[in-house]
């Protein structure tokens, strides 16, 4: 039997199909979020099924997560992205203690206890500073591609100080820095540091390892290093970092059934 997780995020929709025999990803897909949220997610789901030659009747259960989770009325259940991230990342890294998730429009820091259960979490969802959107805007201003950001940041000799607490003002600050002759490399390194500082503020004192980095921003070169340097801890980027939420949702979908079928322990540590 197959199980599906759908992560309807603020910028992209992710679908993950897993096989409950070994809880591995059979197929996955991603598309941009849009106005027709429900239809877009449905189309992506159909595409993933088609490409993996799985029929709808062989899908046991669907769990939806992400901002748009409640709009997906064809899902069997909704679970918050906090719990789904914890499941998805724990499945890859069973002893994970901290998850840093930086998405398109928010960032989260999730602390897990020794048994893999969410202990608590912090979220920055009131402003775009500290999110992927900030990097997009900065990249556009600096005429860089997102995938070049890391390479360029490494060339910085003196990362610029970006102090604005708001993306709109930070953009103005970038314009000002360019006008004063600051190099784009120093500016982009400064932007990455400023996002890392936001995460550092959420982490507070006593961040626990292993730390796993997820979300679209984890794919952007340079961010992992900026975070590791600021937090003074080594950081692991999750496998398919954009997919961990949907993966977790799929595991939850499968697990509910397996509890009944096989009497498996319904807890995070048992799922890997």
């Amino acid at each position, binding site marked *: 039997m197959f199980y599906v997780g759908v992560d309807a995020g603020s910028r992209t929709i992710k679908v993950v199909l897993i096989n409950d025999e070994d809880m591995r990803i059979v197929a996955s897909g991603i598309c941009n979020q849009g106005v027709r949220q429900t239809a877009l997610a449905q189309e992506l789901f159909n595409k993933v099924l088609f490409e993996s030659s799985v029929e709808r009747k062989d899908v046991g259960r669907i769990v939806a997560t992400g901002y748009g989770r409640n709009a997906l009325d064809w899902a069997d259940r909704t679970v918050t992205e906090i719990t789904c991230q914890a499941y998805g990342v724990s499945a890859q890294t069973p002893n994970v203690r901290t998850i840093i998730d930086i998405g398109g429009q928010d960032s989260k820091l999730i602390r897990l206890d020794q048994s893999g259960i969410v202990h608590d979490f912090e979220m920055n969802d009131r402003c775009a500073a500290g999110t992927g959107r900030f990097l997009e805007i900065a990249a556009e201003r600096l005429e860089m591609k997102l995938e070049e950001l890391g390479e360029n940041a490494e060339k910085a000799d003196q990362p610029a100080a970006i102090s604005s607490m708001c993306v709109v003002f930070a953009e103005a600050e970038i314009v000002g820095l360019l006008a004063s002759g600051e190099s784009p490399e120093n500016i982009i390194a400064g932007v990455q540091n400023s996002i890392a500082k936001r995460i550092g503020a959420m982490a507070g004192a006593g961040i626990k390892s292993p730390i796993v980095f997820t979300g679209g921003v984890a794919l952007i070169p340079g961010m992992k290093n900026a975070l590791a340097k600021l937090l003074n801890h080594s950081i692991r980027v999750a496998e398919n970092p954009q997919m961990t939420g949907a993966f977790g949702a799929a595991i939850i979908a499968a697990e509910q059934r397996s509890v009944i079928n096989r009497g498996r322990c319904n*807890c995070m540590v048992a799922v890997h």
Partner: protein
Amino acid sequence: MRAERNAKLDSPITYFQSQVENCLDYADMRKKKGAKIVGIMCEYTPREIIMAADGVPVCLCGGSAEMAESAEKCLPSNLCPIIKSTFGYSLEEENPFLEMSDFLVAETTCDGKKKMYELLAEKHPMHVVELPQKPDDRDAFKHWEAELHKLKGALEKQFSTSITDKKLRDAILVMNRERKLKRELAGLMKSENPPLTGRELLEMKSLISAIPDDLEQYEKALTMLSGRTINPSAESRVRVMLTGVPLPHGAERVMDIIEDSGGLVVCQENCTGLKHVQEDVDETAEDPVHALAEKYFHLPCSVMTRNHGRIEQLRALAGEYRVECVIELIWQACLTYDLESSWVKRLAEEELNLSYLRIETDFSPSDSARIALRVQSLYETVKGRKVFNN
């Protein structure tokens, strides 16, 4: 069947849904008979002294987002929404109770209120009571008792009356009766299957204390509600302790999010919940002002340092009400509760082994989806832990 049965049992709940109208009628009636309307804004204010001066104490705390916005013409935007809303009502002259008040008894619960009162006092005669800051200090109680004597004097002067010990004792008796009834009503939530929701209990209050009809309804509720059921049933919900700032009339949004997301607020440790009804006043004391000073001195208000009483109260209530998690509500820019939340989080997580969530917001609904996400995630953790521990 259940709906029908509930409809009959609901009459006390329905009664309190028109509490504002009831209070207006009552205040009008009393004013016509010569009583004075006295506005108050804090549970630390001893209503008994006001009542002994033939005053009708009425709560003026604002819960309206609209009025909070209006106050920003005059007050800083980064201020507690209760302060803004209360003051906004004054600017707009929209709170009938404030407009009909003969006198205001204010207090120094926080710097924001204290300074707002200066502006409010331009339009309304006012006496400010100074609250103790260091309850463990040996001079603190003496100072507080002296403050109550000053309040008594101020009321006597303002209303050209004399507050006798007999009048104080009568007021103490009726307030003790109300506190006992409210305590017992809240105590219904200790049950495995509470007969009402936290939101329903929150509404069973009144802007004016000890209205005879209200007391009758509380009594009726105690006998009638025990046979009632709620939907969805309590078994499927997470038992929540809500602590932190009060939820004045109109500002029930967070309570709704908590209960609509699968929780049941079984215990409210705040000034619209149990905080001030936990202790009564000694009815037989020789010096009623001293007895009043004792009761109010023990109120664990976050303006105190250290406020050990609140931690003790939270610890006791968490056990009595068998809560499964603690949600702390902080109104934006409420520094005292915000900073004190560190101690509450520590108590919940380290000592009581309960999940803790802190929500900081104001009266505007813009962040409701964000709050719901946090609350739902908290419940998932609570339920996950339950499965894990079993």
